[in-house]
């Protein structure tokens, strides 16, 4: 059925092409490759790519989907920047990405094209200017206008083909936890620090038991080790600011904070806080925490402290002076850096300075923080047990927080239903299955939230024909995003045409998506308009362009 359809279409195009009878046709476009991860690890991505390839083929392209595991794919994309055509990619949501700076700047600024995260090689001075300007603008409304402009530039240039913002789907046992006590953090979902503090037990069971498919790698406040790990250390360690359920910064260990000019922030530390070993949390500890990350022993955290010129203490008030204005400082630094006890870490860091290894490979036997949960026990690859810090200013209502490592999604669902888990902290399977299971079970409640993160197809702007805006726009227009939402994500995603998620209401520019026109005819029209021709069902370059990259 489908192949006949394709044949008819091709003939139609042939006829059209003949009628237009272009004066000149370029070389036929070589086989285009698109990289994807395997279905086993990334079923939705894999399926999206299959659909996209199928649509592109209808435009007269020969498309080859190359499947490779993440390690290889990242190696090719990062280190062989001239050698690939297009690839599936994703950015995941993190609370500190609630500030758009990281995405807007790192992904598209020309300075990161050679070795940084602008691996697609997008070069646009106009965009660079906007991206730089929004960094220094402290006034939210003015900054918002700049962020909108950046989004519209991207929508125009289509350096990437944005696909969807997936929905995060989690579930919990509503016979164990009071449903009203769940906090749905925008762009993140209900599995978040706020929920873990707020969950209210209904009966005798007071332990939060949740799953992760990935092992916990480290519980180290100076090492950004991975998604699951952050669930743990966000509970064990406090930060001056936390990104609130609404995505905006909220004073936390800081009682309050205030911008004094565009390079100075004054933070007042909350009184009466204690470390888990009983010692008080002092402004000295806070200062130390921010100095530790730039000590050279914590390279992954260093960027979050590198813009700090000096830190001054006056009673409970800590004043940060920046080297250059940075609007995102509050969200991406103050809400990112873990507060660590000076009396524990100072000797460790001094010792590490004499050694080759740095603090990232240092694992405390019992991590000491000041957060709402205390570290109890860690069994390699099996579970992590935290217990509630009842003395915390926002003490959790649950007794313990137990993270079980369950690599198999089927098993995780089974455990949730049997009561071995009471909070589904990760679910990589088909959300419909989860919803059906919840319906059957009766004890479960499922909550889906649009993610801050996004899935996209990156075009390698270094390589023709992807260096042609028209070509990129046409390819992007070829696929109706709703098809991907429905077929690959089962409806558990929203269409996207911006790197800013609609869950970040303040920063999101809805115009980008509203103006995106898709469909086969739209795409074919764009190509024709740009001078691409079809010959024998194969798409050719416009004018006298030669194929230089054919194998």
């Amino acid at each position, binding site marked *: *059925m*489908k192949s006949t359809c394709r044949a008819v279409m091709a003939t139609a195009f042939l006829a059209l092409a003949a009628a237009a009878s272009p004066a000149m046709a370029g070389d036929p476009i070589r086989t285009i490759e698109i990289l994807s991860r*395997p*279905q*086993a*690890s990334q*079923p939705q991505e*894999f*399926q999206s790519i*299959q*659909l996209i390839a*199928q649509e592109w083929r209808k435009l007269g392209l020969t498309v080859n*989907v*190359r*499947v*490779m*595991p993440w*390690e*290889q794919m990242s190696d090719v994309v990062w280190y062989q920047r001239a050698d690939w055509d297009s690839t599936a990619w994703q950015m995941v949501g993190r609370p500190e990405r609630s500030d758009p700076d990281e995405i807007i700047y790192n992904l598209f600024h020309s300075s990161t094209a050679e070795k940084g995260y602008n691996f697609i090689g997008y070069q646009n001075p106009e965009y660079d200017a906007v991206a730089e300007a929004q960094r220094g603008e402290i006034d939210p409304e003015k900054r918002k206008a700049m962020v909108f402009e950046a989004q519209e530039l991207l929508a125009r240039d289509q350096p990437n083909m944005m696909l969807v913002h997936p929905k995060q789907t989690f579930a919990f046992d509503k016979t164990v936890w009071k449903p009203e006590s769940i906090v749905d953090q925008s762009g993140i979902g209900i599995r978040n620090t706020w929920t873990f503090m707020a969950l209210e037990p209904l009966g005798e069971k007071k332990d939060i038991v949740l799953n992760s498919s990935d092992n916990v790698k480290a519980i180290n406040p100076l090492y950004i080790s991975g998604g699951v790990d952050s669930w743990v250390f966000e509970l064990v360690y406090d930060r001056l600011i936390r990104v609130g359920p609404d995505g905006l910064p909220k004073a936390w260990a800081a009682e309050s904070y205030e911008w004094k000019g565009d390079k100075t922030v004054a933070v007042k530390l909350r009184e009466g806080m204690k470390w888990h070993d009983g010692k008080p949390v002092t402004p000295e500890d806070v200062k130390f925490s921010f100095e530790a990350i730039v000590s050279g022993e914590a390279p992954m955290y260093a960027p979050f402290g590198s813009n700090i010129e000096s830190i001054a203490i006056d009673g409970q008030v800590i004043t940060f002076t920046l080297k250059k204005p940075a609007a995102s400082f509050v969200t991406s630094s103050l809400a990112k850096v873990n507060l660590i006890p000076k009396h524990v870490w100072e000797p460790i860091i001094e010792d590490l300075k004499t050694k080759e290894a740095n603090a990232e490979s240092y694992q405390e036997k019992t991590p000491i923080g000041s957060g709402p949960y205390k570290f109890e026990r860690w069994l390699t690859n099996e579970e992590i047990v935290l217990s509630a810090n009842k003395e915390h200013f926002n003490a959790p209502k649950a007794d313990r927080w137990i993270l079980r490592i369950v690599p198999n*999604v*089927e098993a995780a*669902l*089974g455990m949730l239903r049997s009561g071995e888990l009471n909070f589904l902290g990760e679910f990589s*399977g*088909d959300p419909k*299955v989860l919803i*059906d*299971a919840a319906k059957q079970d009766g004890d479960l409640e499922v909550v889906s939230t649009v993610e801050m993160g996004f899935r996209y197809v990156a075009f390698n702007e270094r390589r023709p024909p992807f260096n042609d805006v028209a070509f990129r726009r046409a390819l992007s227009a070829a696929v109706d995003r709703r098809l991907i939402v*429905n*077929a690959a994500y089962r409806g558990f995603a929203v269409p996207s045409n911006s790197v800013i998620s609609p869950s970040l209401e303040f920063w999101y520019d809805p115009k980008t998506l509203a103006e995106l026109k898709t469909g086969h005819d739209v795409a074919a029209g764009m190509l024709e308009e740009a001078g691409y021709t079809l010959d024998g069902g194969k798409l050719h370059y416009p004018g006298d362009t030669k194929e230089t990259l054919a194998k």
Partner: protein
Amino acid sequence: MHDLALQKPGLVGRMFRSLKLPLSDPFAVFGLAVYATFLLTAIFADAIAPYDPTEILYTPEYELASDLRPGEQGFILGTTSLGRDIFSQIVYGTRSALIIGITAAFMVALIGSVVGLVSGYFGGWVDAVLMRLADIAFGIPFLPFVIVLAAFLEPSIWNVVLAMALVLWRDTGRVIRSQVLTLRSRGYVDAARVCGSSDLKIILRHIAPNILPLSFLYGSIAIGWAILTEASISFLGFGDPQSISWGYMLQDAFASQALAKQAYYWFVPPGICIILVVSAGFFITRGYENLLFPKLGR
């Protein structure tokens, strides 16, 4: 010499006869029948399968034809969550299963036989070196080895074949070697040598035909191993998503939560196919053992 040549059946016939297929054992015959059936399915897959196994199918309303139950919309065994025809996947899966199984078996039997022959026939330092290599191969844990290989090379069904060729010749090699040693000790090899036959001729004429059934026996075990290994590798996510195999189907089914969906029509048939083919290999093996080593008898 003259009339001997006249009586000689064709090479193929001779090879076939020297395989000594265990046709008297009912289970072995069943195994051979299973193989024959799957072989035919694999050869005529294009004619049998109604769809391309990797094609994403749509309903006439242009909706994704996913998770359809058997019989719905004319799909014999239903469709996967990706909208692919399960029956066609089973049919094409036969092809990759047999390709993997038979090439792996061939490699294992060939390499093992050559090593065993050379080692047993020539003895001395050649034997010492080859047998130390076999010791090393015995020291390599097989499944982890395949996993590492599959993870580093691009996902492909040939990884399993390669790994088996690199490691699993060891068992065949050792057995064939001891068989060759026994054969060598019999007079006729010496007799042939006295008559001035070359080593190659002695090996090909006198020894190789006698070890052929043994190679075939180890080959038929290797078929099962290869198919099971490919399935495990696919399940762990190191498989080749481009070529549809039964292991891939099972992995796809589990990843798509066929268990929770109670999509038995999806994860049971590939399992049964694997069990059938692999146990068919075992049945044939047993038939052989009874034939070759009657002392093990029933």
